[in-house]
């Protein structure tokens, strides 16, 4: 197994290298550099910037060295924890990132905390007896919640829970300090989709396991039903959902953009979105890099979980 994981680790490192090179070359292009130059020199846009001024700026910033040298410098800065400067807010990108990531992590933590037990239980219950009334109800509910895009969920939840019933605040700006009540709407919006998704995957895995020949063996061995489910079915059925939950981290990074922007929650997604809109190049670059790093890490965790849960992989 360790051999497999080391190979995956190398593969991931290669991917990270590729992504960083890709990102650097994108943001190193004139299109984005001019934006930075305009912001630093003052002016109304890239079109008003004269070639002379631009070249002088490049020379002053020490950017007139070959591409690979610039790339190396950039990597060295990252290694030192220097991710650049935010043009919009004029603070270090790393500080900005830390705060917003922490806020998003809180959101993600609660999502996982509720999602994992809830969706696995529902999925297993539905998949245990394929075609039963319980299965049909859970499956249909799951397909409906996964069909509603999060913008629609967010709007409807706001209308009902905040505007109609007034239970929770409509926005999660949290100007008066942190409050859990303000987190309810973004949390519910994220949960509705993610729970449905994991329920469907868990159900599918469970249905497949319950139809397998080794479950027939267990039944015809005369084992009690509880033992068949707990000992024989769950272990095999939960392998796939367990790896998917790690991969959901990647999905969450996408979903927080919509949800945080909608509810004005000061998290990673909103920071990324604002940076993109404002043209805050270095924030955008750093945020993308971090997002990819988190995604790659979640992939690695998912592979490790799969290898650990599956004896066929673990022991070969």
């Amino acid at each position: 197994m360790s051999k497999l994981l080391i190979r995956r680790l190398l593969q991931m490192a290669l991917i990270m290298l590729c992504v960083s090179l890709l990102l650097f070359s994108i943001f190193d292009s004139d299109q984005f550099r001019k934006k930075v130059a305009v912001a630093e020199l003052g002016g109304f846009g890239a079109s008003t910037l004269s070639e002379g001024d631009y070249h002088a700026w490049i020379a002053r910033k020490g950017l007139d060295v070959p591409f690979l040298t610039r790339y190396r410098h950039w990597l060295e800065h990252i290694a030192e924890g220097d991710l650049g400067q935010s043009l919009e807010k004029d603070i270090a990108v790393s500080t900005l990132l830390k705060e917003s990531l922490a806020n998003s992590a809180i959101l993600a933590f609660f999502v996982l905390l509720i999602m994992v037990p809830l969706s696995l239980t529902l999925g297993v219950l539905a998949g245990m007896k394929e075609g039963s009334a319980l299965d049909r109800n859970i499956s249909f509910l799951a397909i409906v919640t996964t069909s509603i895009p999060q913008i629609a969920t967010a709007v409807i939840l706001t209308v009902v829970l905040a505007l109609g019933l007034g239970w929770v605040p409509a926005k999660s700006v949290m100007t008066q300090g942190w409050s859990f009540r303000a987190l309810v709407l973004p949390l519910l919006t994220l949960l509705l989709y993610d729970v449905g998704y994991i329920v469907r995957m868990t159900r599918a895995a469970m249905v497949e396991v319950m139809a397998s020949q080794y479950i027939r063996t267990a039944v015809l061995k005369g084992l009690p039903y509880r033992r068949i489910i707990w000992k024989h079915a769950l272990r095999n059925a939960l392998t796939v959902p367990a790896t998917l939950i790690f991969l959901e981290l990647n999905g969450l990074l996408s979903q927080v953009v919509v949800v945080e922007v909608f509810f004005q929650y000061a998290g990673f997604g909103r920071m990324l979105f604002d940076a993109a809109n404002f043209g805050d190049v270095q924030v955008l670059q750093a945020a993308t890099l971090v997002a990819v790093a988190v995604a790659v890490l979640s992939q690695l965790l998912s592979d490790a979980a799969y290898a650990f849960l599956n004896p066929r992989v673990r022991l070969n």
Partner: protein
Amino acid sequence: MSFPPNIDAAPILECRHLSVCYDSRAGSVPAVVDFNLTLERGEAHGLVGESGCGKSTIALAIMRHLGRSGRIAGGQILFQGRDILAMSAEELRRTRGAAIAMVYQEPMASLNPSMTVGEQLVEVPMFHDGCTRPEAQTRARTMLERVHMTDGERIMRAYPHQISGGQQQRIVIAMALLSHPRLLLLDEPTTALDVTVEAGIVDLIREISAELGTSMLYISHNLGLVRAICDRITVMYAGEAVEVGVVSRVFGAMRHPYTLGLIASMPVPTADKTSRRLEPIPGQPPTPRDRPPGCGFGPRCAYFVPGRCDQETVPLRDLGGTEGEGLRGDHDLAAHDLAAHDLALRLHASRCLRIAEIPWNAPPMSTPAPASPPAGEVVLAVEHLVKRYHKVQANDALTFDARRGETVAIVGESGCGKSTLARILMGLTPATSGSVRFRSLELSRLPVTRRSTKTLRGLQMIFQNPFDTLNPSHTVGWQIARVIRKFGVEREEPRVGARVRELLDLVRLPHEIAGRRPRQLSGGQKQRIGVARAFAGNPALVVADEPVSALDVSVQAAVIDLLMDIQRRHGTTLLFISHDLSVVRHLADRIIVMYLGQIMEQGRTLEVFAPPYHPYTEALLAAVPIADPRISKRAVLLKGEIPSASSPPLGCRFSTRCSYRIAGTCDTRAPPVQEFSAGHRVACHLPREQLLAMRPVFEETTT
């Protein structure tokens, strides 16, 4: 619920007028109709029939585990006098796995992949007999020894994927025996295994039945295995029991045309193509949806009388004249004495109206097949062929040739490299070294993409799996026409169509089949289309990779006959790859026996089937299950299982399993090739005299 007065006197299992249906969207389909069975204590009863005849359904019905669509539509199943259908869920659970246990067809799929073998074994005594874990572990280890698994401690800790197929099946058997069941249901337990491994499992099952006295219901499509294991037998056809009786009577003096047909269509390792032709049963079994009226076998029966056999349902009748169901179905338990017991064992019943009219003892209607024309010039010459995949040596120094009009069979078990050889010949993978010459053209490293149309059409292949050989998305006619056009046999549309019809005639299929898609055809029909496709361009050499191994016996014979006819007519050279020595004997002129990538023995068919044998050939022959009661065979002990091809044994590759092994010689040096007559070569260290002194494996008693 009243218990019968004497539980020990009641038969272990009785099925009375059992009917099972499967409900589908299109309505209810009968799978088993009016099935009766009486199984006494310690008795082994065989249930044979072709695929889809309902034999596995009976086993699952006895376990009351028919799935959501299956349902017992009528009748009773009595286990030790108690009605299984009336049991509560809890009673049923306590019966399953304890009093009635089951062994399955695919051991790998039947074991839980994420639990250790030990864990899966100990739960049986823990849940049925209330054993503590250490007690259960001791019992499991003892049981592992009993099924001859010496390394119990290691096996208990292993996961199913870490042990071989034969070992997995031993585990499943051990699991079934752990609670000392009164009844063991075995559903094709050896079908997924290699012949020599199968022989080991069969020995084990016989041993269990002899020592433990467990009653057995043994389900198989293989008549030979049933003969080796069972006392009595029920022959099933299309959901009905057509003949019931003691094995020797049913196989030796059958009284149902279907049994007769089955025996006649089965290849026997003592008869070859010049002495007896295989007699296929025409047509194919009906689907449960369109059973014919009257006798289910009627449309395929040679003794069918219209107006009589197709009228009303034919009852199962004892040959003495009494109705079968009256005999055992409602027998009085109190009157159950030795005489009745004896009667049950002697009962020989058949579901045929014309028992008295059919000439059962008439000699087989078949005439020996016409002798093949003398072999011509060499078409294929293989020399020192080697193929390595990474570490695996799939083919090692193969040398043989095949002549025009000749059938050369390549025989061996899994991992022997026979399929790799086919892939090299077809240009799907290059050889590592050595040469393959086809009509003086070097092919060993010429990939299929660089071969000329002339070479391609001269060298074609018939594939193993009938369900895989045709493209499911296109009609049969389209697929044959594509080959005709591709090979430039015909170009204009009407002539291509005519050629397609010609080829359908050649494989004896009606023309309208051309418009159908593969899923509308039966396995045998698909395989015939595969034959037609291979012969579309008049090939000089056809490689047939186990073309009949997935087919039912009665259909198998028809495809074999067809293949031999076409070959004889066209003078084609046939390279027939198989694991089944009986089939091979019926069609091969020469045989090459392979083991782990090497040729162990080659020679003309008669020479390979008679001493001197290579020890592996001897073991292979002894492993062939034979149904014919006139043939007896000698037991040959074979140790262990086939080693992995990635780390073959040193010296002679067969040395790890050979009972004649000379320590220090066989396991260090490669064996010399000894030639006994022109072309009969044996690669073995044994002294020539010892090989010559071997006794034949089969003996035919002519009474």
